[in-house]
């Protein structure tokens, strides 16, 4: 039996797979995401406070979405010596790849960065969408 056949991949198993395929989160270095899906695609929100939009690099390939970027520490007003009292914010470069349960239409991807949150909207490739097949009575 060929389990990879699309025949056996009903929607539920696709979404189980979707959850499993998401890269495990290293909460210390990976940006955290919230994901929603709808009939035609998905909406992904990424927590990225303090990042400049031009330091974000978003790419899609097949069913994968990669979010990469760099978070730089805020400079002080002048180059003075300083002492740390708290250092809880993370800085440096990050990269995270999410696997979605469908092939992404690259032309559909829209990314907006606002108030420290990146929102990526993407649609499923037309050819990958489930189709309703009419049954003709003979």
């Amino acid at each position, binding site marked *: 039996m060929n389990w990879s056949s699309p025949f056996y991949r009903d929607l539920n198993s696709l979404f189980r797979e979707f959850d499993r395929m998401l890269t495990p*989160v290293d909460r210390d270095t990976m940006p955290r995401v*919230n994901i*929603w899906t*709808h009939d035609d695609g998905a*909406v992904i929100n990424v927590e990225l406070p*303090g990042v400049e939009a031009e330091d974000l690099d978003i790419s899609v390939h097949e069913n994968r979405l990669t979010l990469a970027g760099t978070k730089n520490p805020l400079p*002080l*007003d002048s180059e*003075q010596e300083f002492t740390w009292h708290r250092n809880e914010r993370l800085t440096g470069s990050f990269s995270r790849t999410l696997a979605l349960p469908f092939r992404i239409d690259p032309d559909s991807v829209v990314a907006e960065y606002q108030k420290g949150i990146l929102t990526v909207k993407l649609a499923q490739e037309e050819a990958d969408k489930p189709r309703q097949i009419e049954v003709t009575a003979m």
Partner: protein
Amino acid sequence: MQDVINRKDQEVQESKAPGHTLRPRVDIRETEEAVYLEAEMPGVAQEDVDVRLEDGELQILGRVSLTGPADCERRRTEYACGNFERVFRLAETIDPDKIEAKMTNGVLRLYLPKRESAKPRSIKVNVA
């Protein structure tokens, strides 16, 4: 060195806002002139930030007004949405009248300059 900015023992007080209250991550750096505080509050707009100073206590509040997209099924939730709140105790050395606040890309930046009298002075030693 004495801490110029201290966490309150009970840092997050009972919040009056409904829903979750989250503690923002902060960076605090001190120079000879001032203290710089950055608090991460993703999803908070500049107009929804409230910085209060009362009895030497600095309270940072950020209200989040965002919800998920409509007509969608939630698939994964790694971060909670809610208001941000954190309280610090400020040392007397900070001049409360000169505090500046700015919100950029979900990060609140506070500039807390020290009083003139608190800044270190170098004393010239005269050769007798």
